[in-house]
């Protein structure tokens, strides 16, 4: 069994046919040449105007020159970051949509290769393209090194950090590629997902920087490893470290591990959606997801546990930080996953018709009846990983932290209820049902915010925030129903949605028989 897994892995990563095929078509004809010429022209324009400005000044102080060159380095790497973030998700999303569009997906899937093989091929193709773009830009950046503005390790580490961003958004493109059958919506969704990721990593890097500042750290801001994945901050964060227990872990290493984890999870999600049969592809993917969720939970706990003391002051308890990190990982991390698992089209694609609410035997199969058992298992292992990680890193788990767990689970349950209804009301295809599921979530958030705002008017923002059923766990707990209360409310809402949706579904099925 291990031998077969090894053979499959070697076949997937070494000499992947999709990787080779994509290279041939990416390099063919004049189109790529024109694109690269345009790309080089843009870089030349930016860098040329910079160097030109320096030359025009005639004489310049060496310290001032180096400061200008550092500015160039920052601007240049930020520009590259955004270019890569623009190109990489589009590459993967378009390649997957085209596979469906030309119906070649059935041909590939009737060959003895797994869904993972196809997606890894696409991902590696996009990653190679990212490196082509970076390598083309290297000579322009290297001029700055020759003038002494920055160093080779800085530049190469920054390029590697940018490539990680490319890998992350390329895997996002895979997910959005399988979500829709049209190129433009797939690319737009990939960009939207990238913006969300950018905001997430940006907030985390800013938090880390603020914490470093709070504890009196001097010199370069300590952005933490999230900074490596944040455009515009990468160059500051790549050579820094993040405390992990007693170890100062290199940011680049942590960012690499995080990117590999995240891209793997996204690949698993995408592969689950396109695998043609329920077994053994889905079974293997789901088993992998469980392992990844365990590791994610463990890693999240270690990172939060290692936050510097400055964050723990000001009335914010460590348990609250940990609890809300857990909520963010398990609760909001699930928004995209649940949408995939729990949405199916009721009429448009018969394959996805529901076969019940809960069937534990279907745990490793891709049917609707396996959604709740699989989500439960996924949350269980992530919770175990997180709580276990907290215990291993700090030697204890506070009861206050445990109060946050029902909330994280509740948001998943509530989302499943929403998606169940979205599936019932969607008469179109599967992507349509998924879009409706996403729309429902946005609408619910708006309605909740509006209603809570009206009810708590005059009591201030803190009260309104704390009463919000979905976001309330992040608020000040003295106002609302408390974090446990939020969890229970979400469970109740999810239960009502699931119960009513399932009743309606059975009614429709009965009617179709009569």
């Amino acid at each position: 069994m291990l031998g077969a897994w090894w053979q499959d892995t070697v076949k997937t990563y070494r000499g992947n046919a999709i990787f080779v095929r994509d290279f041939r078509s990416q390099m063919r004809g004049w189109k790529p040449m024109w694109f690269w010429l345009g790309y080089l022209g843009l870089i030349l324009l930016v860098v040329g105007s910079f160097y030109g400005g320096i030359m025009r000044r005639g004489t310049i102080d060496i310290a001032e020159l180096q400061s200008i060159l550092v500015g160039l380095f920052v601007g240049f790497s930020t520009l590259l970051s955004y270019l890569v973030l623009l190109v990489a998700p589009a590459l993967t999303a378009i390649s997957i949509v085209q596979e469906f569009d030309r119906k070649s997906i059935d041909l590939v899937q009737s060959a003895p290769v797994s869904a993972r093989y196809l997606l890894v091929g696409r991902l590696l193709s996009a990653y190679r393209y990212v490196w082509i773009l970076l390598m083309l830009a290297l000579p322009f950046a290297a001029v700055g090194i020759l003038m002494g503005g920055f160093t080779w390790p800085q530049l190469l580490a920054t390029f590697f950090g940018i490539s990680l961003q490319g890998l992350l958004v390329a895997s996002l493109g895979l997910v959005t590629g399988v979500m829709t059958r049209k190129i433009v919506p797939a690319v737009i969704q990939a960009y939207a997902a990238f913006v969300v990721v950018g905001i997430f990593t940006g907030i985390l890097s800013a938090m880390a920087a603020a914490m470093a500042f709070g504890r009196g750290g001097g010199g370069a801001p300590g952005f933490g490893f999230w900074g490596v994945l944040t455009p515009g901050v990468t160059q500051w964060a790549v050579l820094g470290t993040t405390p992990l227990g007693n170890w100062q872990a290199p940011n680049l290493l942590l960012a690499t591990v995080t990117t590999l984890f995240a891209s793997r999870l996204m690949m698993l999600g995408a592969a689950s959606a396109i695998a043609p049969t329920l077994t053994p592809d889905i079974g293997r993917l789901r088993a992998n997801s469980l392992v990844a969720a365990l590791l994610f939970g463990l890693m999240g706990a270690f990172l939060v546990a290692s936050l510097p003391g400055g964050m723990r002051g000001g009335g914010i308890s460590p348990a609250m930080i940990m609890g809300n990190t857990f909520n963010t990982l398990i609760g909001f991390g699930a928004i995209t996953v649940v949408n995939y698992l729990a949405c199916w089209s009721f009429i448009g694609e018969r394959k996805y018709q529901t076969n019940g609410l809960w069937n534990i035997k279907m745990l490793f199969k891709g049917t609707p009846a396996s959604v709740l058992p699989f989500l439960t298992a996924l949350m269980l292992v992530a919770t175990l990983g997180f709580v276990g990680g907290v215990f291993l890193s700090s030697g204890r788990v506070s009861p206050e932290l445990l109060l946050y767990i029902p909330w994280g689970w509740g948001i998943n349950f509530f989302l499943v209820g929403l998606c169940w209804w979205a599936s019932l009301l969607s008469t179109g295809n599967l992507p349509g049902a998924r879009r409706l599921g996403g729309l429902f979530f946005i609408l619910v958030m708006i309605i909740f915010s509006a209603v809570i705002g009206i009810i708590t008017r005059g009591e201030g923002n803190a009260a309104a925030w704390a009463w919000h059923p979905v976001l309330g766990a992040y608020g000040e707990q003295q106002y609302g129903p408390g974090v446990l209360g939020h969890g229970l409310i979400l469970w109740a809402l999810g239960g009502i949605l699931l119960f009513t949706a399932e009743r309606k579904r059975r009614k429709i099925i009965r009617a179709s028989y009569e």
Partner: protein
Amino acid sequence: MLEVLNLHKNYGSFTAVTDVSFTLEPGDVFGFIGSNGAGKTTTIKMLATLLEPTHGTARLDGFDITEHPLEVRKRIGYMPDFFGLYDDVKVWEYLDYFSALYSVPVKDRPGVIDNVLELTDLTFKRDAMVASLSRGMQQRLCLARCLVHDPTLLLLDEPASGLDPRARAELKELLAELGRMGKIILVSSHILPELADFCNKVGIIERGNMLAFGGVDEIARGLKSIKVLEFRVMDRASELSMWLHGKPNIQNTYLMGATTVKVDFDGSHENQVELVRAIVNAGYPVMEVREEGVDLEDVFLNVTQGALN
């Protein structure tokens, strides 16, 4: 050998395929006949491991389609009712891509590609872009793709749809040749004449139910007990027609001109021999006795009429 065992597929409350069973041996060319929506494509997709059966299974060379889909995929060549071609590659690159997907060793690939191109008569297009090929050539390229890994079973879903008569004839010839090479070929179609010529077995499916399976003649014989015998004599055809009238196992007689008489005959082979002997003994100058061939279209209409009623 392909064994299909009670293959069944439900889509929610809708049953697309109901307990289909049949067995095919190497060299069999099996025509899978049914109207649009009868369940042909669903059956083929299940055999190609692209759809999970609700219950039942199929085994190819002992490998179960649900238990060992990857092993089954190594042994099948699947050609859907659409081309699914990559138009931004050359013909040899397209075949090289699928050779790699099917784990054909790198050193063997050039030889394999040359062989399948020769077999499908596309050698002269080796370096052409796929997008530049005509529809018939694209169809042949699809078939070439199915052959790169030397599969045991070819699953061809409506392979001749949209082809001109010449391309159809070429395709039929090619499939017959592949059958002679010992491959199991399952070819679906709702255009019946295109199957009749080269299939040694047919299956008729309607509303997900396999109504008949076997050789065309075998099915026809199972359908009706009456066969049409044609006697050609040098002369005295009208006299022979009258002589035959009322003889055992003769239902009707038809005079078809000065030298030909047709009869509806419901006897056994032995009765048939007796009848011919009696005609000769009666002194009629018999030049030829012929049993009229079975028309696949008639068989299909007969079989499906019952199902629809």
